[in-house]
């Protein structure tokens, strides 16, 4: 089964969960006074569930047209093996790590770490360029956000401030 059908199947499953919540559990906590309304908070989700199921099943069961040949530079699942999957997954993991360390390490530390490790993952080894660039970038972005935009960002770890 092609990936797009798996996605359609997942979507139908999502519609089932969504629909169950809309049809069976959501109205239980609705105050009686609101029940006299012609439209309930669950009305629109109910309509969406029905439409979603319908469209999901259509995508799932429509016979597929012939594949057009892959164009150069476009992304094609059949060439998945040729791609740098490990790099992509490590970068995703790095993004999660950034989200978790942003508060404990402070903005500057976490950002320099993210940019340096990100470049290392992609194969950069010229530290004499990498380190100054990332430090200047992190510090100037912090200055822009904190001073120009006025959004609070803690630059250093909590125990230093």
């Amino acid at each position: 089964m092609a990936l797009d059908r798996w996605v359609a199947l997942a979507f139908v499953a999502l519609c089932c969960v969504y629909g169950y919540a809309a049809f069976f559990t959501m109205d239980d906590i609705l105050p009686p006074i609101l029940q006299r309304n012609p439209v309930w908070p669950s009305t629109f989700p109910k309509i969406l569930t029905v439409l979603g199921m319908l469209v999901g099943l259509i995508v799932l069961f429509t016979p597929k047209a012939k594949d057009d040949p892959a164009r150069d530079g476009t992304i094609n699942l059949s060439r998945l093996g040729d791609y740098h999957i490990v790099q992509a997954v490590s970068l995703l993991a790095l993004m999660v790590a950034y989200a978790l360390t942003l508060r404990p390490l402070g903005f500057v530390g976490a950002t320099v770490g993210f940019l340096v490790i990100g470049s290392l993952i992609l194969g950069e080894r010229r530290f004499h360029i990498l380190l100054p660039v990332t430090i200047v970038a992190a510090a100037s972005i912090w200055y822009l956000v904190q001073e120009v935009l006025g959004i609070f960002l803690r630059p250093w770890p909590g125990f230093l401030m």
Partner: protein
Amino acid sequence: MIEGLLIGLSAAISPFNLMMVVMGCMVGTLIGMLPGLGPMSIIAIMIPVAIGIGDPTAALILLSGVYYGAIFGGSTSSILLNAPGVAGTVATSFDGYPMARKGQAGKALTIAAVASFAGGTIGAVLLMIFAPALSSVALLFHSAEYFALMVVGLSAIAAFAGTGQVAKALMMTILGLMLGTVGEGALSNMPRFTFGMMELQTGFSFITLAMAMFALPEALFLVMNPARAATGDSGKITGMRITGAEARSIAPVIGRQSVQGFFIGVLPGAGATIASFLGYAVERNIAKGAEQAEFGKGSVKGLAAPETANNAACTGSFVPLLTLGIPGSGTTAILLGALLALNVTPGPRLMIDTPDVFWAVIISMYIGNLVLLILNLPLIPYIAKILTIPRTFLIPFILFFTLMGSYLGQNNATELLILVGFGVIATILRFADYPLAPLLIGFILGVMLENNFARAMQLYQGFDFILERPMTLGLLVLAALLVILPSYRAYRARKRAEGVADGD
């Protein structure tokens, strides 16, 4: 209209707003040139900055400058590297890249700049004429018609998604609408689909979703397939002049494509990409003999046509946004989200309640086009140097800006985890060949759609509004036809193809 223009002039010509136009065009051109970052990603990254400014006029001026700049930057990388940064400039590379290969890169960039300028400027004139007219009609609309109109918009976006893609686009639209229902409901402030999580009480942030849908998958694809970036030496750019004969031959092309591109841009879901391809095809068919043979091998007409059309279409896509409050493309959907965050509700009341915003945007379109022309003609050889930044530096920064964009919107690290989660889902959807713009448009329109639906339901005590208001019924029938007709044609085409296969 004269009064409006004066209001707009006085707002747009303030030093701060002029600075915003110049800054927007610069940032847009610089980032738009990078492979993989389209106008949607760039605008999404710039939103925290725009919201930080606080003044809706200045913010919208900045963002539309970024939009124009991004489209122009995309054509630069199409011409120089055959690596279009944006789908809307793919047609530009058909004739732009061959010209650059023949050593006419400078001339190609000049033609692109002039054609973009003309397309954008003529588009802005048309916008000025049509938007007020449309918005006075839209004032007669009630919530029932609004609901129906949004349904038409959403189904048109699915209908224009391309053959065999209609059902998929529709599925993405519905997924977007579903995501839009997470959080407190339209009428009753009752939390829906939050699974008891406090973070979901306010619903998903649209900036996070926009980043996850566009910027993140594109950056991941650049990592996975380095060929996609095609960075390299942009060479030396000389000979920017065009001859009088060339100017005369592209003038009618620019005239035709400005008008055609504008009206394609007005249609929801069509936008710059379709306008540029259609513009290219039309001009190739109109051209005669030797000129037609030249198309695809470095024809000046073939370069001017898509460049004019995509800029005119960008301007055209502002019409439904500013007059009806309904975005027709992913980019204008992001702009709508930014406007709502700035407490401006686009729609027919915009011209009455905040005429300074409306007219300042139109005036800044003229200024933006002028700035791009002035900025690009002399500076392009230097700006093109950005194409030589190695990807090992570029990609971590792109990812970092994605993270920053969504963090600054909410100031909450949980948002970053949501971003990565949606980013993975979006990448899978891209692999499975699902269009993502309908999802985002559905998400942003979802709340408004439900509000108008609920209001109509309350006014008419049920579904009677569909039958009692002929215009609503008409629009809903139109929406159904928009979805059913292309599906039926695809079905028949498939049946016919199967029949041929059997006959062998």
